[in-house]
């Protein structure tokens, strides 16, 4: 290798450097802020998705998961069918959800003030009604061409606390 000393380049480092540190710090803060905004946004979206996924949507879910509910077990029998009331829940907006367990073939349930109904699996029927402003709703059990109606008032076996849910 050569013994000649290297050229001295130190003078080439003596230059006017621009002020970049201040701008770099500003960019860094903005970068961090942007990153946190995205993380926060992702967390919010995740929470919203989880809450949305856990929010009951079907009548059955809304009735079974409602916090204001009463377990009541009156039983009606008509035309060979047995219908038992399992649960009544307040669904909000002045509506009530009824969960019936039905034993029998081709049984349809109708209630006065009915807004919606839903059959879930074997023997489970749900009915949503508008809370009656006066009097008591009626439950009609339909089996083929035959039907029988029952008023859910005092003496029907339905606890009257249901109407103040």
């Amino acid at each position, binding site marked *: *290798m*050569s013994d*000649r000393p*290297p*050229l*001295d*380049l*130190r*003078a*080439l*480092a*003596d*230059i*006017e*450097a*621009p*002020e*970049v*540190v201040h*701008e*770099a*710090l500003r*960019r*860094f803060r903005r*970068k*961090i802020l942007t990153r946190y905004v995205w993380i926060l946004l992702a967390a919010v979206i995740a929470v919203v998705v989880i809450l949305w996924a856990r929010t009951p949507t079907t009548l059955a879910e809304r009735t079974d998961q409602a916090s204001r509910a009463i377990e009541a077990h009156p039983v009606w029998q008509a035309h060979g069918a047995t219908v038992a009331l399992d649960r009544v829940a307040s669904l909000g907006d002045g509506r009530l959800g009824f969960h019936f367990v039905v034993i029998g073939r081709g049984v349809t349930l109708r209630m006065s003030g009915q807004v919606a109904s839903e059959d879930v699996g074997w023997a489970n029927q749900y009915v949503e009604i508008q809370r009656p402003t006066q009097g008591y709703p009626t439950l009609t059990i339909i089996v083929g061409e035959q039907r029988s109606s029952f008023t859910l008032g005092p003496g029907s076996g339905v606890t009257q606390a249901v109407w103040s849910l």
Partner: protein
Amino acid sequence: MFRAHQQAVFAYFLRVVGNRQDAEELTQETFVRACGAAVRFRGDAKVSTWLFGIARRVLLEAVRAGLFERRAEFDEQTPARADDPDERMDLERALASLGAGDREVLVMVDMLGFEPIEVAGIVGVSPETFRVRLHRARARLREAYGR
């Protein structure tokens, strides 16, 4: 701390990439990354070694992105402040005429005063390999300088 190294980092980029605007941008990017990496800096190396490690990664990424494939241009906008302007200008021209690899090696050792072994660590080669690279770069500079 950063301000103390600002000039050296800028000089490194300027001499390697050859134009002021790119050098300024790369210097800024280096300090942005250094801000983020500062919390992980354990102090087991000199700040300058750590900072130039970051600067070199910034440069390599820029090279991979194809930003600096051209040879460095002699930047007359940013002359070195020197006692003998003509001689310094010749030296700058000679340095700018070399390949980027040679320029980087010479800038770090002969301009910024890093020890060859430190630069070998930053560049990621063995000290022996680096010494050979440095020797060749010095020879080429001397040839380009013509004195």
